[in-house]
């Protein structure tokens, strides 16, 4: 009975953890994209600023959550998931990319469709790709956990 309750409690924490993880990954890729666009006179500084702020907050919350989910009963429930950190990191990048596509479409083509005077494709592709690699490595190591339960 007590274990069932703890598992139910863990599900909510896991849902929160994964949501924050996706927000962090998506905002990181988006921030890099809008930074590239802004650097090339794209006038997306407000979008970049908001997204970068969201990213920093999500980053801090994720760090706190990861510490919390590495100890006690939450830590023990997380162990089986931590062993699949490779696909988890890969799927995080996939889902974050798809969310980024949707949000970029909304911002760049629906809400505020102003063409950028200078081409930013090369810069954006380079930074976003490096961001994707970084995100993969970051999530891979994040899933290793903290403290005594670290894999």
């Amino acid at each position, binding site marked *: 009975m007590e274990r069932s309750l703890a598992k139910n409690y863990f599900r909510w924490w896991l849902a929160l953890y994964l949501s924050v993880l996706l927000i962090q990954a998506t905002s990181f*890729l988006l921030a890099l*994209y809008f930074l590239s666009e802004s650097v090339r006179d794209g006038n997306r500084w407000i979008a970049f600023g908001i997204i970068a702020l969201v990213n920093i907050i999500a980053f801090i919350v994720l760090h706190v959550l990861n510490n919390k989910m590495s100890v006690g009963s939450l830590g023990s429930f997380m162990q089986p998931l931590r062993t*699949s950190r*490779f*696909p988890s990191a*890969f*799927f995080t*990048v*996939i889902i974050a*990319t*798809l969310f*980024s*596509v*949707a949000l*970029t*479409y909304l911002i*760049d*083509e629906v809400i505020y469709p102003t063409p*950028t005077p200078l*081409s*930013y*494709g*090369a810069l*954006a*592709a380079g930074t*976003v*790709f490096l*961001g*994707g*690699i970084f995100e*993969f490595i970051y999530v891979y190591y994040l899933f290793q956990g903290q403290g005594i339960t670290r894999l």
Partner: protein
Amino acid sequence: MNETTNRLNRFIPLFLTAIVLLALLPSFYYPNPSFYNWIHSEPVYGYYQLGEGILFLIFFALVWKKNKADPPLRYVLMFCGMILFSVIVMFIHERTLAYGNGQSFHLSLYDVSTYETEIFFDILVSFAVLFLWRFAKEDPRYKNVLPILVVLLATISVIYGFIKGPDPSYSYVYYSSFFKSSDDLGKVLFAGGFSLAVLAYDSHSYLRYLWISLAFALLVATGFLGLSITFWCLTGASLVLSFNLYFDRYEHGVSKALKMGSFFYALLVLALVLLIAIPSPIATVLRSYFGDEVVAVISSRFKIWRSYLDTLSSWRVFVGDGLLGFYRSSLFQGSSPLYTPLENGIFEVYNSGGVVYLLFYFLVVVIGLAKLKKEEFFHPIFYGIILSFSGAFLFYTLLTNERLLFSSSYLSLIVSYLFMGYAHHRNPEDEE
């Protein structure tokens, strides 16, 4: 392992030889272009590729089933994720583009389906390379069939290339031999050079020196055929290999003559570089063979890459532009729709699926290298051969339309077979 499975594994190199021949066949243009024109006509080429792909998949499904070769779950999940992502991206990519004064360009269903099928096929090929081709190492009786065939093809192509002569319409030395463009000739010669290196490793005494001499002759011919990108990639790989041979401390079957030969080879390459670099009448002649194509190709490639990147914007930065990416630059310039290959393995991959595809191929290469290190690290000469030529191939893909290491094109199939499926030993008993 039962006899049927053994026979199936033994058959892998022969099957790959047949697949490479099927993949290579549509590239032959000379002496009679009618076959080329027929096979490249609209429905024929699509069906041809589909047939080749289905044949490949059936065979490797059999290998998978018979060997009960279940890869680690993390990799199965990664490949499943890629298939799922590819399906989603297929629907995200645009198929219509408005340009000029109210005109619009629409991609046909045939073109889109051919392109997407090729992408799915490439993902499955990389799966087969990583997890199934290693079974070919278990009974390597026919392992040399593919390398010998490639060497024969490269030698015949060189001879025919010199008989046919250069194309006078180019300002630099341009030979294409049996093929429509010099790119295909370069690919065949690259595969020939790599195959000769592994054949030389696998042979003993006089036969080894015969393969080395042939490799050297092929390298010189590559230079004089004006295929300088292939030439410098092969030279770089063979130079790394010569250092590997010269500094080998444990004498892994390396004779003193071979060590001295490696040393003189390195000196020869250094002399060639100096002769080309220092301005002189000889340098002018040598540059027309060993440098002009590189300069011409790189400058034309830069223009293509720049115009592609200039058209990249919005959500396309994340998932690439799909088939439309090959037409967008010509449409943005206001001209009629013109298919422009990106001539860069990284861009080709990026255009198909953006960040995720690049990450996927990056991980596939890392997994492949880790497996190669695990299996061949204690055979340093063989490991050196595979690593140097695969590295040269990765560099080669940066200037051609080859899609990084593990794809369905014939050069990639040959390189990845030698990378993951070629055994360093002759019999299973020889393996330490």
